[in-house]
C-alpha cells in the first residue's frame, strides 16, 4: 500500500480536526475550574458513548458546573436527583427503558464521594441486580464540590480540609479504598480503571463497556487543580505521573479476574508525583522524621501495586505508560 506523501501542515491538521464530525455530549462554556480533570473526563466519556444514552448524575462538581439554571452544558438527556442514589436512579431508568423496549443505554456519573462513600449501597444494589448500566466514577480523591473534604478515595497522607496535617497528624490517616476490587467482586462482566491522561485508553474502555449487556464500571482518575493544589496547566502531567509511579494502576477486570493492565515503561519515584501537589507538601519537610517515613510508606504502596497488578513493563510497548498517551491517527500502524 502506498501512503500519500503530501506534506501535512499544522494548519491543515487543525482544520481537519475541527471538521471531523465528532459527537460532544458536553458543550464548552460550563463553569468548571481551569484544568478540571473531571470536565475533560466527562467530555471524553460522552464522546465515546455517543448520543443514544441517558445519564443519571450524582450531586457533585460535575453536576453543579454543568447545570446552573437556566443554562445546561449537556446535549444528552440528563438527570440529577441526589448525592447518594445515582445507582438506583440509573437502575430505574434502565428498568423503564427495558419495559418500553427502547435500546438507549443508561450511564451513571458520580464523583468518588458519591461512589465510594455515600452512594455505595445504591451502587452495590444496582450491580448485584445486573442492570444494564455503565457506571462512571470521576475520581478526584475528595469531596471537591463542598470544598475539599476527605473521602474514602483520598490517598493516604493527603491533606484535605478534614484531614489537615498538624502536630498529631500527617494528613489522611487511612488508605485509599480499593473500590475497583470491591465493585468487581459483584462478579460484573467488566470493571476497569483509566485516567484522563490516556484519552484513547479511556475511550476504548467506554466503547467496550457500552457493548456489554449488564453492569459495567469505569473509574477515571481525574485531577482537580483546586483540591490537589497543582498548576492547572499540569493536570495531564499529574494524572500521567499517578500512573507512571504505580500509585494509580490502570487495569481491567472481567468477572473479578484481572485481564489486563497498562505496563509502566519507566517507574517513576512517587516523589515526582507528590511534589507537584500542595496536598502533599507537608511530606517534603526534611526536618520532619514523620514526613520521611510517610514518603517511604507511599513508595511502598506504589511498589506493592506494581507487583500486585504486574505493572512492570518489558521494554517499549506502544500502549504502556509512556506510549498510550500518544495520539495515533490511523491506528496502531504508526505505533
Amino acid at each position, binding site marked *: 500500500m502506498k501512503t500519500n506523501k503530501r506534506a501535512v501542515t499544522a494548519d491543515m491538521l487543525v482544520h481537519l480536526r475541527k471538521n471531523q464530525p465528532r459527537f460532544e455530549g458536553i458543550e464548552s462554556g460550563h463553569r468548571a475550574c481551569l484544568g478540571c480533570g473531571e470536565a475533560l473526563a466527562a467530555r471524553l466519556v460522552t464522546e465515546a458513548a455517543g448520543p443514544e444514552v441517558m445519564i443519571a448524575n450524582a450531586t457533585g462538581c460535575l453536576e453543579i458546573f454543568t447545570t446552573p439554571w437556566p443554562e445546561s452544558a449537556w446535549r444528552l438527556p440528563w438527570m440529577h436527583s441526589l448525592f447518594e442514589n445515582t445507582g438506583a*436512579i440509573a437502575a430505574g431508568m434502565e428498568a423503564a427503558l427495558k419495559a418500553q423496549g427502547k435500546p438507549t443505554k443508561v450511564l451513571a456519573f458520580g464523583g468518588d464521594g458519591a461512589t465510594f462513600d455515600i452512594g455505595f449501597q445504591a451502587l452495590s444494589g444496582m450491580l448485584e441486580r445486573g442492570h444494564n448500566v455503565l457506571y462512571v466514577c470521576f475520581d478526584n480523591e475528595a469531596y471537591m464540590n463542598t470544598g475539599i473534604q476527605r473521602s474514602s478515595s483520598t490517598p493516604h497522607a493527603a491533606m484535605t480540609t478534614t484531614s489537615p496535617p498538624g502536630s498529631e497528624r500527617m494528613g489522611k490517616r487511612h488508605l485509599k479504598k480499593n473500590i475497583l476490587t470491591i465493585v468487581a467482586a459483584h462478579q460484573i462482566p467488566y470493571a476497569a480503571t483509566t485516567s484522563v491522561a490516556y484519552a484513547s485508553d479511556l475511550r476504548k474502555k467506554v466503547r467496550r463497556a457500552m457493548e456489554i449487556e449488564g453492569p459495567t464500571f469505569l473509574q477515571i482518575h481525574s485531577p482537580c487543580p483546586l483540591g490537589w493544589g497543582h498548576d492547572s496547566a499540569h493536570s495531564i502531567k499529574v494524572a500521567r505521573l499517578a500512573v507512571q509511579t504505580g500509585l494509580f494502576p490502570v487495569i481491567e477486570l472481567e468477572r473479578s479476574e484481572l485481564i489486563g493492565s497498562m505496563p509502566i515503561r519507566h517507574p517513576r519515584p512517587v516523589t515526582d508525583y507528590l511534589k507537584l501537589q500542595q496536598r502533599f507538601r507537608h511530606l517534603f519537610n526534611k526536618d520532619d522524621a514523620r514526613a520521611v517515613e510517610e514518603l517511604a510508606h507511599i513508595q511502598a504502596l506504589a511498589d506493592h501495586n506494581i507487583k500486585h497488578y504486574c505493572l512492570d513493563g518489558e521494554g517499549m510497548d506502544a500502549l504502556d505508560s509512556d506510549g498510550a498517551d500518544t495520539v495515533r491517527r490511523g491506528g496502531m500502524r504508526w505505533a
Partner: protein
Amino acid sequence: MLKALEGSQAIAQTVALCRPQVVAAYPITPQTHIVENIAKLVADGKMDCELVSVESEFSAASLVLGAASAGSRTYTASASQGILLMSEVLYNIAGLRVPMVLTCANRAISAPLSIWNDQQDSMAVRDAGWIQLYCADNQEAVDTTIQAYRIAEATELPVMVCMDGFTLTHTLEPIDIPEQDMVDSYLPPFNFKRALDPANPTSVGTLVSPDFYSEARHSHHHALLDAADEIIAADNDWKQLSGRSAGGLLSVDGPDDARIGILTLGSVFGTLSEARDEYTELPPTKLIKLRSYRPFPVDALRHACAGLTELIVLERAISPGYGGIVSAEVQMALSGKPDMPRIHSFAVGLGGRDIPLDIYRKLHAAIKVPEPRAFSIIDVEPEKLPVEDHGIESANTDSNQQRSIS
C-alpha cells in the same frame, strides 16, 4: 363483584389493574403483603411489569423516580422507618414534579419500636410536596389507588395513598375489585411530557440560584392547591363508572342539626360510626372524614363545620412539644369564621393501641369543659407512667387520677 380479600391483596390486584411498568419496593411490616402479592402476580404472569426488589427503601423511591423520569408508570409502597428513609427522595420526587403513586401502610415510628398502626410516618413527610389521601376502609383504598394514578398524571404530582397498617392492610373485607376494562377506560396509558429522551435531550434536576428558588416553590405550592379540583373530578368520574365515591376532598356523615363534630383521618372513622349507632343517648354528632390532607381543603372544611359548636380533632400522630398536627391546621383554617366551633385536640391509638367503641363516649365526656384543652393523648393510662411524668394532665375524664395543669 364482591370478593373477600385482605387489604394488601386487594391493593396488589388494584395496582396490577393500573398497569405500572416499573415497581420497586423493600419489605417492611405492615406493607410487606402488598409487595409479596405483587411479586406473586408477576410470577404467575398476571401482571406485566419490571419488578425490582431493591436493597433499601431509599433505592426503591430512587428507582421509581428514575423510571418515571424515563417515562414509565411506576408504583412503590412502604411504611414507618421506610418512609423516613425515603424522605430525602420523596422531597426530590415532588420537587421534580414527577407523577407516581406510593402506598403508605401507616405505622408508628421508632423509638420505642412499634410495628403497629398510627400515622406518624405519613405526617413526618407531610411537607414533602406530595398529595396525601387517607383511606377509611379497604374499598376506599382500592378506589383511591386507581384515582391516584389519574390525579398524579393529570397534575404532575406524586400521590401518597395512606391506609392504616393492620387495621386495613391485614383485614379481610368484602371488596369490589373493578374490571380491567373499567380501569382502562378511566386511566389512559401514561404519557409523560417531560420524559427523558435522547431525541430531545433535556437537563432535569439542575442547580438554581436564589433568583429562581422561590418561584419554583411558589409553583409547587400552587400546583398542590390546584390539585384539589382534579381530586374532586377524579372521584366524580370514578363514581360515574363504578357507582362509588371515595370521599372527594372530605366527606361529612351525620345529622344536619348536629352541634358536635369529630374530624378523622383514616380507618378510625369506621369505629366512630359504629359507636355512634351504639351510643344513641349521646348528642347528635357529625363525622368529618378528611381524605385529602394535602392539599388541605380549607374551604370544604369551613363549609363542613357550619353549625358546629364543638369540633373534636382526632389525631393519629403527634408533634412532641406542640401537640396535635392536624388540629393546628384545622384551627388556622377555621380562624376568623364568626361562628367558629371550639376545637378539642386528642390523639388516640398511638402505636397500635386499640381504639374501642367506648372512645366515642370518652370524647363526648372530655369536651364538657369550660375551656378546651390544648391537646392530650386521650387514651394514655396514667398508672403506667413513671412517677416523674405524673404531673402531666390527663384528658381521660373517666379517670379519678385526673390532675390539674401545673
